[in-house]
């Protein structure tokens, strides 16, 4: 597990489907990395890749970061906003990689039928660091919407010390990045994630 110390290099891969808000998450993480005085670079894709296809975004931070892309088998944390996409990201993992996976399943249409249980089983067998969190469910239940599930997960990851970024920096980054209209909801989401330490 990663602790909150000044690190050489931390590679965070966020995977999901188009439309799950990866770019917003990157914006928040980039600002948070800046606040924590890390050197950082990120990489994302816009346009065609957003229309419901597979989306991977990269953010790397540490002492001296050159490439904006993470190499295969070098992701320290894979944050999966959807279960199948998380499985597909295995090429980026090494044995100690943490998989923080949203317990959310969006069927691939059309495609060979795979069940949520099959995917869940496979995920749990990946390595010993797989965390399945029903972020969509939790947000829907407590906030009335699941649209901030990604923010919940990155906040969760920071509180759990999966990411070496101070939770307060995530909050400041949210305040800086999110538009006024949605700010309240996002702050509530962050606060919701802070409760995990009481679980």
């Amino acid at each position, binding site marked *: 597990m990663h602790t909150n110390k000044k690190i050489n290099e931390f590679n965070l891969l966020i995977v999901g*489907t*188009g*439309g799950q808000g990866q770019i917003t998450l*990157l*914006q928040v993480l*980039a*600002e948070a990395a*800046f606040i924590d005085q890390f*050197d*950082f*670079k*990120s*990489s*994302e*894709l*816009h*346009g*065609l*890749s*957003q*229309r*419901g*296809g*597979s989306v991977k975004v990269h*953010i790397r931070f540490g002492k*001296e*970061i*050159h*490439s*904006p*892309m*993470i*190499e*295969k*088998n*070098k992701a320290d944390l894979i944050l999966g906003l959807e279960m*199948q*996409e998380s*499985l*597909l990201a*295995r090429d980026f*993992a*090494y*044995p100690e*990689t943490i998989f923080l996976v949203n317990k959310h399943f969006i069927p*691939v*249409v*059309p*495609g*060979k039928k*795979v069940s949520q249980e*099959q*995917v869940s089983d*496979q995920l749990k*067998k*990946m*390595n010993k660091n797989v965390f399945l969190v029903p972020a969509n469910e939790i947000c829907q239940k407590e906030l009335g919407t699941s649209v901030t599930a990604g923010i919940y997960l990155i906040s969760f990851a920071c509180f759990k010390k999966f990411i070496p970024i101070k939770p307060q920096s995530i909050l400041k980054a949210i305040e800086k990045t999110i538009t006024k209209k949605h700010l309240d909801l996002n702050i509530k989401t962050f606060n919701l994630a802070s409760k995990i330490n009481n679980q």
Partner: protein
Amino acid sequence: MNILEKENKKVVLLGNEAIVRGALESGVDFVSVYPGTPSSEIGNIFFKLSQLKKFKGYFEFSTNEKVALEAGIGASFSGLKVLVAMKNFGANVALDALAPFAYTGSKGATVIIIADDPSCHSSGQSEENSRGFAQLVHLPILEPSTPQENKEFVKQAFQLSEKFNIPVIVRITTRVAHQRSLVNLAKIKTSKTKGFFKKDKNQFITLPPRVLEMKKELFEKLEKIKNLAEKSAINKIIKNSSSHSKIAVITSGVSYLNVMEALQETKTNLAVLKLGFFYPLPEDKIKNFIKNLKKVLIVEELEPYLENEVTRLAKQVNCQLEVVGKKLFSQIGEITPDQTAQAIAQITGKKLKNKKLLEKQDNQIEIPKRMPRLCPGCPYWLVVSALKKAVDPKKVIFGGEIGCYMLLGMPSVNMQDYLFCMGSSVGIGHGIRKSTNQKLISFIGDSSFFHAAIPALINAVTNKSSLLIIILENQTTAMTGHQPHPGAPSSGEPGIKIENIVKACGVNYVKTIDPINQKEFVDTLKSFLNKPEVSVIISKKPCIQIKK
């Protein structure tokens, strides 16, 4: 907004945001664009800034890249500072105006952003490398690697353009446009909106024999710019006293970042020549760099332009030099940091540390590939539904187009038999109809219609074709981020009516239908498909993503 923060601040910027900031810090007066990934954010941001009255210059979303550049040329001739932005294919459309612009030169400093998309993450058509324009149009091309460099190189480009009265291209790729990192800000300069066109037949008219004199003047400018490039700090050598004396690297753009990452990771110390100028190349600097080497690794994506130049220069100073480029890198697809590390290991004879992999699992289930698809609720689904009722898709040829309807080729719809450039659905469809007796339906979007399809439509009517064109009027330019277009202006005014244009082009069978009216749509499809002349159905229903 980070992009408007005060000078001396350090902020997080997306690559394209940094380009906008660079233009603002240069005091740009006139900006014209046509959206295209990965350049679209440039226009979107200027649009937003204009609406917020934070940009006092002039901004427009132009109807296509040719007229965007022409508008920019007019502004430049009137003494204003100009920025024009497009993706690589847009430069094809603009090329007709770009070539003579190099000859006349600019009056107001002009910078043209061209954004390539190696690996075609968001591009059909081809994996086009706009570096190829250098030798064709003879314009300087700069290649930044990071958001900070995007800003700096745009400013340098304006200065270069100002000094030599020549438009300057800044060429970016997806990984540079859509990269986020820290940028140091400088002061934003004020923009002006009114210039003056001073008559000068000698400068603005490209008739022979003057046009050939202009070519000579262009080459003279380039010679001076090459001398400037030799001394420019943006072509820099990164080395120290313990750098390998016989093996080194030459690179540019995002590949530079991957090289530095690979050197750090493999703990290899090779000197690196980072080229900020792609054209003209600082040839003396390159020759100096390679003259005592045994091997040089050229890390460049796509075509081996740089490799060929270095090979040519090596013949002048170092005939024994081994130039390694496409031997280790494909011409197809972007170059990853992994591939870069492997190449560095290969060229130095080092062995890469074995990566720790996840244990292979028994009974690994196969996850189906998730392809992009039309949004749920997209009006195009209604069109597809009507088509399935009206025709046997196996008996009709379907013309694909650039835009969200690119996705009509996806397996569950399967209504796409060819896909080329903007407007070509109609253009090629006409050719097929004249060459066969087969039924054909061309899809075209509203933005694409204005961009490129009108001449194709006129051609089809004039040359007595009989294809059925379905214009998908969703009242936006959706795929690239919902920009306005002539039929759906941002002001909320009615805009140019597509049906009127179609009628004016001489089409007798044209009908505007809301696809929710399935019966009317199906009946019209059946009827029009049998007409012996060009027919048009305008499927009018707004994109679900448009903010009201």
